[in-house]
């Protein structure tokens, strides 16, 4: 396998300059700088939301404040099947929070900090610069070295080395993008992740997984019957989903590394809506074995179930809070479908949505402070974000049919299913509604996306 080596501290400075005092000052400066960046981003976000509501200015495809970053081609990157600098740039561009500064025309292209003429980059407006190199190793692999430099401070913000096989090029690039994202914004990136979705082509259904940038899609299940509600186990190696191949909805769990799958829940009636507990050892599922659709807990190994919800209504779409203590779910116990919250061990439920007559598909944000859901209003279905504390609701999307929301593991983006004409597509929106992406994955009807956890190891 591959190795991941910690190359230097984020604020590593040249040895000659290293003494305790300057080091501390440099650290402090850096943190103040990152804080300022963050503040600017946050302010820009809140201002924009207000402005949008008043002026209906729709900013699509990028944030207002974008950090200018230059990604220099890594020396020797043509040795690898993909150019790492291009993948990193595409990732950051897609996030909507960075502006790419063209590195073209600078010769020689720097590989080490000592080779950087900072004036070249500051004159182009770059605030951060990425440099690095690809070196073949004796065992046929490649050492990928990169450094993130602060152009104004002329200091290093991060530097890592990965030793990879050439097949891991894209993964390494996504990890580099994650480091840059985190160093410049203060929150982890979510580029080195995978997504799952269902493609319908004619009467054929395929469950596919791909990298978060849509690359490398592969089919893990093909069927002539519908597949819905795929969801990632926290380990990123198992999927639970609902398949209709048995002439009724049955919940399966499939191991991605072995390809093996087994029935998780096949009780009398319908079995659906699997949701993993954060510990990955049990799931909530919706069964109708006792009549109406109710929420039950089941071990990830299958077996007996225990009933969690207890109503004479529809209780469905359970979703665990990140701490595993609570469940959000959809219920029409009050006459119309609304979002409720109850303990993960069952019991009484409290209603949490009150506006509108159709609020469904709740998903906790990874920090547990808010949740996204789908609201029907005037015949349109749109994503909304609600904070638990303030109960403030922010509209996130404005499509005709937006559904099946799923948070990125860093909570910054929400992947969802949408429509382009009659065709199903995937789209993503930032958690403030400002940045919108469309994921063009392939032809066919694409739907039911779910964003996987951060990948551990290559």
């Amino acid at each position: 396998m591959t190795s991941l080596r910690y190359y230097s501290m984020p604020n590593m400075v040249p040895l000659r300059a290293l003494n305790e005092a300057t080091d501390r000052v440099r650290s402090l400066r850096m943190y103040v700088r990152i804080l300022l960046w963050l503040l600017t981003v946050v302010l820009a976000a809140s201002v924009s939301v207000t402005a949008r509501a008043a002026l209906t200015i729709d900013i699509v495809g990028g944030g207002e404040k974008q950090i200018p970053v230059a990604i220099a081609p890594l020396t020797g990157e043509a040795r690898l099947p993909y150019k790492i600098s291009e993948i990193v740039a595409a990732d950051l561009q897609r996030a909507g929070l960075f502006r790419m500064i063209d590195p073209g025309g600078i010769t020689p292209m720097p590989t080490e900090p000592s080779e950087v003429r900072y004036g070249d980059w500051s004159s182009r407006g770059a605030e951060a610069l990425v440099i690095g190199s690809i070196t073949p190793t004796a065992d046929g692999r490649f050492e990928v070295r990169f450094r993130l430099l602060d152009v104004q401070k002329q200091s290093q913000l991060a530097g890592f080395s990965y030793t990879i096989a050439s097949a891991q090029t894209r993964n390494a690039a996504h990890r580099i993008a994650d480091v840059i994202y985190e160093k410049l914004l203060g929150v982890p990136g979510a580029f080195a992740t995978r997504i799952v979705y269902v493609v319908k082509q004619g009467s054929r259904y395929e469950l596919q997984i791909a990298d978060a940038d849509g690359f490398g899609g592969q089919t893990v299940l093909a069927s002539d019957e519908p597949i819905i509600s795929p969801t990632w186990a926290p380990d990123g190696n198992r999927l639970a989903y609902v398949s209709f191949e048995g002439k009724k909805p049955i919940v399966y769990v499939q191991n991605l590394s072995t390809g093996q799958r087994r029935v998780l829940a096949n009780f009398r009636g319908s079995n659906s809506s699997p949701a993993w507990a954060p510990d990955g050892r049990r799931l909530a599922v919706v069964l109708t074995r006792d009549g109406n659709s109710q929420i039950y807990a089941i071990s990830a190994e299958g077996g007996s179930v225990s009933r969690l919800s207890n109503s004479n209504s529809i209780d469905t779409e359970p979703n665990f809070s990140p701490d595993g203590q609570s469940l959000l779910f959809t219920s029409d116990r009050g006459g119309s479908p609304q979002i409720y919250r109850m303990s993960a061990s069952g019991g009484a439920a409290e209603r949490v949505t009150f506006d509108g007559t159709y609020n469904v598909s709740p998903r906790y944000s990874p920090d547990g402070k808010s949740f996204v859901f789908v609201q029907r209003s005037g015949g349109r279905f749109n994503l909304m974000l609600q904070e638990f504390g303030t109960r403030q609701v922010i509209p996130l999307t404005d499509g005709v049919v937006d559904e099946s929301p799923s948070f990125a593991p860093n909570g910054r983006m929400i992947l969802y299913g949408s429509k382009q004409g009659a065709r199903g597509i995937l789209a993503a929106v930032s958690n403030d509604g400002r940045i919108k992406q469309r994921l063009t994955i392939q032809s066919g009807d694409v739907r039911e996306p779910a964003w996987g956890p951060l990948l551990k190891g290559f």
Partner: protein
Amino acid sequence: MRRILFGAVVVGLLAGCAGKDVKEEGAPVEDRKPDTVTAPPAKPPAKPAPPVVKQVESKPIAANPLTDPGNVLSKRSVFFDYDSTAVKDEFKPLVTAHAKYLTDNRGRRVVVQGNTDERGSREYNLALGQRRAESVKKMMMLLGATDSQIETVSFGEEKPRSAGSDESAWAQNRRADIVYDGE
């Protein structure tokens, strides 16, 4: 008389053997003409089908009430209003007929498959379809069918009968279908 009896038994055996080939049930044997039956061959009756088919076809066969277009039992779909799971009056005779059939035929079982139109959350629609199926099941049970005879499942919006996105297509898809075991 002894010869007649023997012949009838043989024909019965042959008819039983041929039953699968001619796809007919309950071949009548009681009033067969023994003269048409040849003596049993020395070896087991490997190819006895043609004469037997003739015999069977000469008799009127009772139509399967579940597939006879003239019988209400051949109608299997109950349609629903938008956002509703109530069985409408116009479909009550249909549900009643199936309930009676199940009451009279305790060995028969059905699956009631609930469906919805495409609008809304897939999982919530799965639950709505389930409720439609349950609604049909409850009415059947009130009319004498038993719980063990009826399984309710839902396809939600996943298996639309009509692929369109207008009201006429949606109306076709808000539906519960009654499917008998073996169908």
